[in-house]
């Protein structure tokens, strides 16, 4: 860690007011006016890649608003958290979007939810709040109660879609057979070619962060966190628990770590199989769809065997896991996985025989490497554009330091390479599971003391099937978190669709959208009111069922 700090001082020098080393990262305080230079220094000087912007209403701590810009130094295996403290009267800060495109959404989100003005933002439209949300009402400020439902007002900030006159538009969504969750893509087409795309998301807001900050206790949040996403829920609970553990410096027993990785990999397998099925369906190849899901079914059984539930496993608590694995379940796991591997192998090989599918995958939805870096895309999308990014390697967590596996990288930048990466990752996950099972240590699965001191910061990343999932936690009083920030992978990947869909034939637009394996409910986890109807949106316990129907 120390060398990182030194490096930072070499690059940024006096701009750093103070620094604080936390587990897995470094927090540096800078003046708001220096922000631009600091960010430039970190992206250009240290090759940091944008991760997330966190806005904190820290008036309860030091009477100010905080904006925390997180960058990931993959090569140094650490995160840099740049903190600027803003005056509580009118919080405002220069936009960094001109420097890193990826920050576009993050800054707009902060603007929407905390009322922190972002000056010089290229696209300062409303991102998250509904069109009829009353102005000067900021849900994530502490004075805003989680159960308040403000009256819709048309005076509020309204979302103005950008449309050029000569272009012809096709609406994709909010309710479209392709999208299994409400999102609005507006494809601007010329002939059968997409020339531009307008995105309007955040229809599925559930106010989970606010809920976590206001109502739930430390050990209740994992169960809610798991319901952020219908497919990779476990990722979120692990990530949350790790963040809290990092903040409180809790030592999690080895066995618990192993079990976490084990389940994580199981989840990855079923998620990728699900995606393969969806991809086949989008390409009109329903046979492949059905067979992919046929192969997926034993994996689901396996998850239920290990955790007691097909989805939303609910075995995570701060400080460890609740449920141990026993001998015969381990044997079952090995047996089932062997079978799955054979089936899967056959599936992949016979999928290559379906020429038209392959033809459509190749060369569509191009995302060049440079754009990938600047948008800070994650997971298979990044790896498909030749970026070597994998949290399991870059910021090792759980038990991944003990297992050896290769991260598939393709530089085709198209849908084909994204598909191939997922295909290969399934093999990798299977081998990882085998290794974990061999090395599985004995011992407790829950650490004894789970005391959580107040106002400590924890940051943690987990490699979800869709990419890096990030949670940031400030611990609070009365065994409640002060601030809990979730950033799902799709949050960084969806903006990159603008690039991918450009000049892409209309027939492949759905595939391209699907190729980032978007998880909209992850992305939209935030606010209280549903954009479309302006009505309350119930927390959906049956996300899997919804996705399962497809």
């Amino acid at each position, binding site marked *: 860690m120390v060398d990182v700090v030194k490096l930072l001082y070499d690059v940024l020098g006096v701009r750093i007011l103070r620094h604080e080393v936390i587990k897995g990262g470094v927090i540096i305080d800078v003046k708001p006016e220096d922000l631009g230079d600091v960010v430039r220094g970190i992206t250009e000087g240290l090759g940091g890649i944008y991760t997330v912007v966190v806005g904190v209403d820290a008036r309860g701590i030091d009477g100010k608003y905080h904006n925390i810009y997180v960058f990931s130094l993959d090569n140094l295996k650490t995160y840099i958290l740049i903190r600027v403290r803003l005056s509580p009267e009118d919080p405002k800060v220069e936009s960094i979007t001109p420097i890193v495109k990826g920050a576009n959404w993050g800054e707009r989100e902060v603007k929407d939810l905390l009322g922190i003005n972002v000056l010089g933002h290229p696209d300062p439209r409303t991102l998250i709040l509904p069109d009829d949300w009353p102005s000067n009402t900021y849900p994530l400020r502490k004075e805003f109660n989680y159960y308040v439902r403000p009256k819709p007002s048309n005076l509020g900030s309204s979302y103005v879609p950008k449309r050029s006159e000569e272009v012809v*538009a096709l*609406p994709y969504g909010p309710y479209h057979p392709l999208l299994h969750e409400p999102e609005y893509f507006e494809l601007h087409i010329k002939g*059968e070619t997409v020339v531009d795309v307008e995105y309007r998301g955040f229809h599925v807001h559930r106010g989970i962060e606010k809920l976590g900050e206001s109502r739930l206790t430390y050990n209740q949040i994992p169960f809610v966190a798991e319901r952020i996403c219908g497919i990779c829920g476990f990722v979120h609970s692990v990530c949350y628990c790790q963040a809290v553990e990092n903040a409180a410096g809790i030592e999690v027993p080895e066995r618990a770590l192993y079990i976490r990785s084990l389940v994580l990999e199981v989840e990855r397998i079923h998620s990728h199989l699900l995606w393969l099925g969806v991809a086949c369906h989008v390409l009109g190849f329903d046979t492949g769809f059905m067979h992919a899901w046929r192969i997926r079914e034993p994996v689901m059984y396996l998850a239920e065997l290990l955790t007691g539930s097909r989805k939303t496993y609910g075995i995570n608590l701060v400080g460890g896991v609740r449920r141990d694995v026993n001998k015969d379940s381990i044997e079952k796991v090995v047996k089932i996985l062997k079978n799955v591997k054979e089936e899967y192998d056959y599936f992949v090989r016979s999928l290559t025989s379906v020429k038209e599918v392959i033809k459509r995958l190749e060369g569509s939805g191009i995302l060049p490497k440079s754009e990938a870096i600047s948008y800070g895309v994650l997971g298979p999308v990044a790896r498909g554009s030749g970026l070597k990014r994998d949290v399991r390697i870059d910021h090792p967590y759980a038990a991944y330091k003990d297992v050896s596996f290769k991260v598939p990288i393709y530089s085709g930048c198209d849908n084909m390479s994204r598909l191939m990466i997922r295909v290969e990752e399934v093999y990798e996950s299977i081998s990882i599971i085998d290794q974990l099972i061999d090395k599985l240590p004995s011992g407790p699965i829950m650490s004894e003391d789970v005391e959580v001191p107040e106002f400590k910061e924890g940051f943690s990343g987990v490699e979800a099937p869709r990419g890096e999932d990030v949670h940031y936690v400030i611990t609070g009083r009365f065994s409640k978190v002060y601030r809990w920030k979730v950033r799902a992978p799709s949050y960084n990947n969806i903006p990159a669709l603008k690039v991918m869909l450009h000049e892409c034939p209309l027939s492949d637009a759905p595939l391209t959208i699907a190729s980032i394996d978007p998880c909209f409910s992850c992305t939209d986890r935030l606010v209280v009111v549903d954009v479309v109807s302006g009505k309350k949106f119930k927390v959906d316990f049956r996300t899997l069922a919804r996705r399962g129907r497809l």
Partner: protein
Amino acid sequence: MITSDVLLPIYLLIIGLIFALILRDSKALDPALFISSVASVTMILLAIQTLTSDLTIPKITTELQILLGTSNLLKTFTLSLDELSAFFILTLGIVGLASSIYGIAYIKRYLGVESLSFYSLAYTLFLLSMYLVLVSNDVVLFIISWELMAITAFFLIAFERTSEVARRAALKYLLMSYSGSGLIIMSLLILYLLSGSTSFTSLKGLNLDVTTQYLLMLLFTVGFGIKAALVPMHNWLPDAHPEAPSNVSALLSGFMIKTAVYGILRFTVSLLRLNYYVLGFVLASLGIISAIYGTSMALLQTDSKKLMAYHSVGQIGYIFLGIGGGLMLYPNTLGIIAVSAGLFHVLNHAVFKSLLFLTAGSVIYRVGSRDLNILGGLARYMPITFISGSIASLSISGIPPLNGFASKWLIILSLLLSNHPILVIYASLAIFVSALTASSFVKYLSRTYLSNPIKSLSNIRDVPLPMIIAQLFLSFLCVLLGVFFYVPLNLTLRTVSNIFIADLTSVNILITKVFNILTFLMLLLVMIIISLVVSIYTLRRRARVVPLWTFGTRDSLPTKLGLSATSYYTEFEHTYSFSYKFRLYVYRFIIDPLTSKFMKFVRTYDSVDTYLYVMLVVVDIFLTVLVLIVLTMVV
């Protein structure tokens, strides 16, 4: 009595002319157009009378005295009316009637902008000249009326003097048609020199040596080919026809270009009996080329009238395919059928194409635009126009039981059965062409009447009564000629038999065979009517109107929604680009060299007002006529 029959339309039209001359601006329009519609009716009656009277009656001929030049030299021309001209007169009558009635209301939109009396003058003259072309039995009269037709057409195309596009197009047309008529005149002069008389009857049975035959064939084919806008002599048409007032473009596309067909049949086939096989081959090849080319070009158009104009090229191609194919198989019965099918297609094309132009005109009349990119959704505001437009579109796409199908079916059938490899290939391509036609007209219908309008349509209602009458009249004919197609077919067969002096006994076998398709068409018609009635009277009861499914977007969808007309069939164009490459070559090697000269003219005269062109034209025609007179005097 008979004499006056032939002359009756002429007298009527002359009266119309007088009206147009004496009456002022808008007052001239109604009487002139009314009289010309009456004249058209008389034409129809006359033609039917001729076609139905049995063959033994000799051809109606009459003498027309015209005072020419100085009072002392007097020239008598003979008019004649045989089945061939009668058939074309029938067509002319139908189109003329429709467009005259339509014009009564339509031309009012130019009130105060252009001189309506001038219009009525030109229009009546145009009708008259076309009629004269058909009935003249004399080389000189033929040429005079031919030139008259050309000029009046020019005036009508350039009617919107203010629009430069129109002027350019008109000039282009004029220059091209002059180069065409120049060739025709040349060949007629040759004939005249050979026969020594200007009367057609003297040309009959003129025995020519081979070289002369081929020379004449070439001259006539190119000369009339330009008038008929056969590829590659076509490129004046897509510019000129859209520019004229819609009812005039109906007359132009509906009839004027078919005078070329008449000319070819009259001179090369009926009178001179040139080498049928070679002629047929040339015509059929030109025909199929124009069919494919014109239609595939029409596929890309985003201007409704231009689209139709290109289709005129395509459909003329169909006609020539039929006639040429027939000539190739001449002694064979199928040949007779093919030619008569071609003739039949002349009639049908006249009907549905003029109907199409009229509907396009109605859209212009109400919305004021013919750009398919901004039109749309008119079906709910202009139902009758929509119905007639869709009938015409389906008919031109050869959809049973409409008239377009009958003639296409006969052409394709007779060519396919003729075991002649070339013709079989042509026919199979013709099937392909009709698919293209269908697609391009679905585009026209959807972008004009059905899909989302780009402009907001407010207080648009259907067109005034005269226009509606004209449209309904033609759409009714579309159905009638389609279902009972053997009636007009008999007429054409008879005409053809008269051309070829062929006996119809063998042909009658087909007529007997036709019985079944009639029953089937009846069945089809009944089913269609039943489904229409059922869906309108039972289903509509239950219908509940809901907003368009906009995928759950809260704000109504963006204004420009859907596919612009430009982006229809882009994939097809991309994949089947060879037919478009062909266009490229044609332009590079044939058309551009030709047109460049005309365009030079245009550019030089562009600065000057239209009247300068007119002066040029008038001088030109005087010269031609003078030459002819002198020649006739000399001999």
